[in-house]
């Protein structure tokens, strides 16, 4: 099984959960990320996810392998949606099965935290007022413009 995947369509949670079934496992922990109707004070209407898929699959697989070794858990699965999503839809799912609950919880937390920080996935928010923006990027562009606001230049162009 491929432990980190993308899905362009809604996922069936019962099927995902069944992939983690193991008679040796007594604990199962899952995290679901849902599309929220607001972000940083703005009303969100819908989202768009895109990914640099080749690298994202590679990095996602690395994260899951790290978690498997660090917490000694046998089964981890992470599915991330791509494309257009409406409010309330499931955007990301992480499931972990393990002999005991503690390592299942901790591995699940590790995977979602690392995925959010390391995997090349981008989210565009469409706001109720008709505006849209790339999350974590728009502020960067503003900061970059501010950082390079020259007051004078010794250049002598010809």
């Amino acid at each position, binding site marked *: 099984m491929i432990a980190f995947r993308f899905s362009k369509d809604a996922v069936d949670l019962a099927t995902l959960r069944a992939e983690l079934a193991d008679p040796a496992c007594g604990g199962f922990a899952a995290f679901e990320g849902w599309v929220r109707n607001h972000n940083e004070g703005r009303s969100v209407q819908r989202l768009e996810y895109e990914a640099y898929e080749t690298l994202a699959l590679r990095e996602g697989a690395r994260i899951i392998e790290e978690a498997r070794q660090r917490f000694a858990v046998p089964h981890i699965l992470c599915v991330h949606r791509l494309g257009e999503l409406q409010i309330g839809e499931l955007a990301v799912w992480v499931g972990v099965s393990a002999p005991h609950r503690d390592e299942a919880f901790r591995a699940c937390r590790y995977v979602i935290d690392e995925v959010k920080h390391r995997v090349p996935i981008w*989210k565009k928010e469409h706001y109720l007022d008709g505006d849209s923006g790339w999350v974590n*990027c728009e502020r960067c562009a503003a900061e970059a413009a501010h950082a390079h606001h020259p007051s004078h230049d*010794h250049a*002598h162009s010809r």
Partner: protein
Amino acid sequence: MSAPLYGLVLTGGRSRRMQRDKAALEYAGQPQLARAMELIAPFVSRRFISIRSDQHHDPQRAAYEGIVDLLPDLGPLSGIHAALHAHSQAAWLVLACDLPFLDAATLQQLIAERDPQSIASAFRSSFDGKPEPLCAIWEPHSITTVDASVASGSNCPRSLLSQGAVRLLQLRNPRALDNINTAEEYLAARGALTPGTRMDATNEAISLHVQYFAVLRDQAGRSEETVATEARTPRELYEVLRQRHGLKLLPEQLRVAVNDDFADWNRPLRAGDSVVFLPPVAGG
């Protein structure tokens, strides 16, 4: 008798288009500031660099005697003004810090054909016929003209020299005063100035495949392209593309991937490599 000749290399520029310190750009392995200071050494009795007050602690500049701008925000005229006031008995061989092709023969010609009676001796621009103020000798008595210009709110040394009594010289080496304002101009100049034959690998454009995602795709107006470039690292390539497409993010806000894996900004690039600049991610 003419006044003693001091040298002044201007390093206070903000490099608006380049967005990199021109004094630190390397040619044949040596930063341009060091190259310029070496070049003028045989021709002047003392050498200085012109700096802004906030550049005191820059390690590259700390190696040289500095003259700090007295009047901020006048561009290169700040540096010339401060030098004339700091050593009023001297004439100044003034050089910009973005003239990598300037050679000793051109400086020799400038000094040989200098006219101490004029306020300055300068080459005639091959572009518009006007004097080139930033590879020129400014005589001590130019201080009157410079002060008057500053007082009237005019800070363009070229128009200042265009109005005064200036000895205009005909440039023998037509490339000597080519200046560097963009990343692409820098890479081309670096290639041309790197020792080796014309077939040297650093001189040739290589073909790279670039993909854009998310906010960078919006800014670049495309999702991919093939680029022929003299850039040899992702850092150099990003500078070229940032200027070409008006990309608004800075390299420190991005990560880079080469051939579908994360890579260092300074790793060497080879023909056919595929490069992706990654905006801040937002999964989950």
